[in-house]
């Protein structure tokens, strides 16, 4: 790379303002009397695809021994010879490294730490996300200087776009022979949304000097159970190991919220037997207890129509939505919920015998349930849901309750039976609860997968590494909707 040429590659996704940022940089440089060139290959990538904008700024003399000469600038970045790489998102920073644009000896990498998940990550049936920490580590290793902060958040806080924050960060790294005032003047000359852009610019600028890579992984909420649960809390504190307390409290609050205090008692009763096994076979870290506690709480608070209605009418939901959409005082907010209950979901919350009759009768076939939209913020809609939520009192008699209790007890028995001989497998087995999730068809599919995986348990126990085999099966069940991966994994057994 010749002296006096500063090269900047901007990696952004279509619609993120990468072009605006490139234009700003060019305008800034030209206004300061330098020669700048930018180019890009947007094409269809403007439709949400990954795009690279490339800028070169020539800062040297424009004449050599009295002769006017024009610099020849490159139209594409040269791996190993890029001074500044700006990535609007963390995986795009990874892409810059992958493409060789970030080099240890010269590149300053400015990247936003937030993630815009790829389609592959989003469509996974479980958790398909790439570990951000790995990307951050790779970026720190690859770059000469790595500047990273959640620029998307800064943009949102200043009511502007990420391009303005990144422009600020570019000014902050002070690699162009320009002052902060010159950058800000470029924004002013742009003439659109000046105030918010300047605020975003300042946020980006400041982040460079007291930034650092922040890693904000929040632990479970540490709220304490209320007074009605005091007796049970005492019981926990006396007989359960401290390592499990936080998780147990979360489970207790969840179930009290879901049903009532007695239900919480049942939860703890069920865990007590696991605790005994963990004392006998565990390594003192109580992993089996904790994992069982987590999954049991989830299973015991299975999602039926009562639960959904209950969650939909909560005060804190209304407040959260109002906050999320940024509803101002003089604006009205309406909330409409989308439901499509099938006859099965209706039968689920009926008294068990009635529900069973309904499902087996011919009426069920004849009833066509259409999708419905309920305006929860209206009196009529709210009351409909309020009444359904009120059925909680009779939930214990419902068809679904009977079915679920029977199944979760069978699951617990399996865990207990396995734990005596293979502690690790028991832990993997708790994980199988994760397969049952969703509603309607999704729930049906999850259930079927769960049954299949559990059915393979005897076979799994005969393997060399039963725990790993079980984990494999669960992973396979979450690999695709068609169940092909699970089928293959089972055949391999």
């Amino acid at each position, binding site marked *: *790379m*010749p002296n006096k040429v500063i090269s900047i590659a901007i990696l952004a996704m279509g619609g993120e303002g990468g072009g605006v940022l490139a234009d700003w940089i060019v305008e800034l440089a030209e206004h300061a009397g330098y020669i700048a060139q*930018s*180019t*890009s*290959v*947007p*094409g*269809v990538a403007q*439709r*949400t*695809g990954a795009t690279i904008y490339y800028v070169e700024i020539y800062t040297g003399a424009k004449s050599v021994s009295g002769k006017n000469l024009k*610099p*020849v*600038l*490159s*139209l*594409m970045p*040269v791996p*190993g010879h890029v001074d500044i790489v700006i990535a609007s998102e963390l*995986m795009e920073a*990874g*892409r810059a490294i*992958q*493409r060789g644009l970030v080099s240890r000896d010269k590149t300053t990498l400015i990247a936003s730490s937030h993630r815009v998940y790829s*389609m592959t*990550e*989003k*469509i996974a049936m*479980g958790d398909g996300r*790439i570990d951000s920490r790995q990307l951050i580590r*790779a970026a720190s290793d*690859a770059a000469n200087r790595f500047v990273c902060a959640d620029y998307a958040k800064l943009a949102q806080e200043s009511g502007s776009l990420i391009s303005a924050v990144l422009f600020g960060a570019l000014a902050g790294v002070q690699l162009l022979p320009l002052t902060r005032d010159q950058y800000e003047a470029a924004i002013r000359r742009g003439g659109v949304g000046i105030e918010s852009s300047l605020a975003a610019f300042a946020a980006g600028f400041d982040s460079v000097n007291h930034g650092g890579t922040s890693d904000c992984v929040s632990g479970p909420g540490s709220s304490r159970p209320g007074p009605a649960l005091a007796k049970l809390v005492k019981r926990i504190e006396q007989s359960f190991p401290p390592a499990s307390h936080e*998780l147990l409290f979360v489970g207790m609050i*969840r179930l009290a919220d879901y049903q009532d205090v007695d239900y919480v008692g049942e939860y703890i009763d069920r865990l007590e037997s696991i605790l005994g096994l963990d004392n006998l076979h565990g390594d003192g870290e109580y992993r089996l207890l904790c994992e069982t506690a987590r999954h049991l709480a*989830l299973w015991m608070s299975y*999602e039926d129509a009562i639960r959904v209605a209950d969650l939909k*009418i909560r*005060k804190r939901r209304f407040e959260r*939505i109002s906050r999320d*959409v940024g*509803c101002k005082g*003089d*604006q*009205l*907010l*309406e909330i*409409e*919920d*989308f*439901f*499509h209950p*099938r006859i099965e979901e209706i039968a689920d919350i009926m008294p068990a015998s009635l529900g069973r009759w309904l499902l087996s009768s011919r009426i069920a076939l004849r009833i066509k349930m259409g*999708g419905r*939209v309920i305006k*929860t913020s209206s009196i009529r809609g*709210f009351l409909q849901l309020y009444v359904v939520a009120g059925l909680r009192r009779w939930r214990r008699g419902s068809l679904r309750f009977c079915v679920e209790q029977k199944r979760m007890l069978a699951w617990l028995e399996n865990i207990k039976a396995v734990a005596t001989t293979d502690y690790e497998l028991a832990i993997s087995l708790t994980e199988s609860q994760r397969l049952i999730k969703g509603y*309607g068809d*999704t729930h049906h599919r999850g259930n079927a997968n769960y049954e299949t995986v559990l059915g393979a348990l005897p076979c799994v126990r005969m393997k060399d590494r039963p725990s790993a085999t079980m984990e494999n099966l669960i992973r396979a069940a979450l690999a695709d*909707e068609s169940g092909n991966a699970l089928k293959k994994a089972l055949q391999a057994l």
Partner: protein
Amino acid sequence: MAERSFRQEVGKLRLKAGEEFRGEGILAVAKALLQSGVSYVAGYQGSPISHLMDVFADANDLLMELGIRFEHSASEATAAATLAASVNYPLRGAITFKSTVGTNVAADALANLASGGVTGGALIIVGEDYGEGSSIMQERSHAFAMKSQIWLLDPRPDLPSIVSAVERGFELSEASNTPVMLELRVRACHVHGCFIAKDNVRADFALADAMERPVRDVSRIVLPPASFLHEREKVDKRWPAAINYIQQAGLNEFLGEGNADIGIIVQGGLFNTLNRALELFGLSDVFGRCRLPLYVLNVTYPIVDDEVRRFCSGKRAVLMVEEGQPEFIEHNLNTIIRRLDLSTRVCGKQFFPQAGEYTASVMARALHGFLETYQPELTQGRSNPENLPKCNSSLDSLVHPRPPSFCTGCPERPIFSAMKLVERELGQHHVSCDIGCHLFSILPPFNIGAATMGYGLGWASAAAFNTPDTQRRTISVMGDGGFWHNGLTSGVGNAVFNKSDGVLVVVDNRYTAATGGQDILSSTAQNSLRTTNQPIESAISGVGVDWIRTVRRTYSVEQMRSALREALTTKHSGPKVIVAQSECMLNKQRRIKPMMRKLAREGHRVVRERFGVDSDVCTGDHSCIRLSGCPSLSIKDNPDPLRRDPVAHVMDSCVGCGHCGEVAQAAVLCPSFYRTSIISNPTTWERFKSAIANVLIDFLQKQNERRLAQ
């Protein structure tokens, strides 16, 4: 162009002599056309030349002042046929489109034009969509230039060179009675740079002059015996005339220091990248002062034998830097050198990869190979190609591809969601795709579509699947752009005539959306320059389709699904067409966003809709994403401390199209989705109703809170 304004760019077209033009390469071409005194411009939009079309569409006043006719051609063939105006009259004309796809379509007219030759300068500006960011098959326009004998310009990718290529291109065309093709790669079209403008020129001979005093010359018409004479004329007259002009005007450049016994020949468009690669070896500097002799081909067809002789004489070897394949220029050089009986070795693909874009890394590697073989002392100890720039594959597992996809709120998404749901009921069908945004259906999460054979050819490419041996029908997709381009005849007319039993879905989003949202016949915008509001259904029924269903709101997945189901199962035999209508969201947002802001500011009642997911109801299965793929429907950390799988999440970029809610409902997925309507400046009645509701809801919620607080 309906929803975007290019007023600022139009201002640049008015610059006067001596003023500095700053802007994009393709806009510089537009300015250069005006400086050259064109009488007419036509084209078909597409990356990377859409900008030229869009700016001209907004520059109508200026074009009228200069007496220029500008057409949004129905297709590239139409655009090419427009150049017929330059056959008999001294009228300069230019056309533009994306290549090679556009050139394919235009080939018939171009061949006829090139056979008879031209009187006025005819310039074909092609955006060579090759390499990174390209969305089409990787081919070269060069072949078209050679087969029809159209001169091909490939100028250095800086604005002064590009502008000069336009101006000289017209002169070359007129000097040799041959149309000239100006090839601009994607990066050159989008490069920002500057040049010193000249005044715009109004042509002396106007279109009206030609219309009022028509001229005909049967020797210019492609019909025997003239067509045989044309071929002779091409080689006997036009070729020598062109060679003469190219040399006289010095279109090609001899750069670098002249005394080495090796040299480099380069296509003009690759010059900047080559120079950067040479800089890496210390063989050139930032001003392009190369220490090796360089022969820059700003004209890549024809190759001038005399210039080749001049450059190659006394050289042991030359490196031919020629992107794409086949390597026509390298073949040509070898022939010339053989005929001249020179001993120079022509090295090209021997050091360069046969296929793919020539990036600086590729260039550096090839250069390294060439120098190592012929002048190893010049590689300065860079004997290890590992030290040359390269990519880093250690991150391959962490970095996912990010292909383009349907925009947030795109009305085409629900069409494919519905298709997926119908697939679950009726099994898979052969789906034949077309060109346009809808082709993104072939990617995850939809994975729908088996082939695409070209613009407007969606239904035509299912033509063979027309047999009584099966009840199963094929589904074809066509956009409104492709429909008017040629699909009405090649697809619909063909299906009617051949008694097809297939199903066609025409995606009617009111624009040619993929090329930047230009108007077409069926656009619903009022366009003072063009005729719009011509319904697609009328055209379809006009050519004889009697089974037509129109879905006026694609977002209704239920309606879309039943239309598809009916089309696939109905007893009606014969072609079946579903017209799926909803406005392109990208353009709709451009249109309504400023309008809504203005209305709200002025105190009018304005409703903004947005969707959301209740993260405590969502269980993290992501079925909704698999059926939607909306960019604003994403995932986030599960706020529930008991769960680990991320939950679905609607981002602030949501435009409230409602698709995710509709899909959740139609597919019986889950009750997590909700729609919010934020009403600015609500009516008094609305305020009253809301106040009453809030009192009651608040009371009941507080009761509930009391239970939960225990």
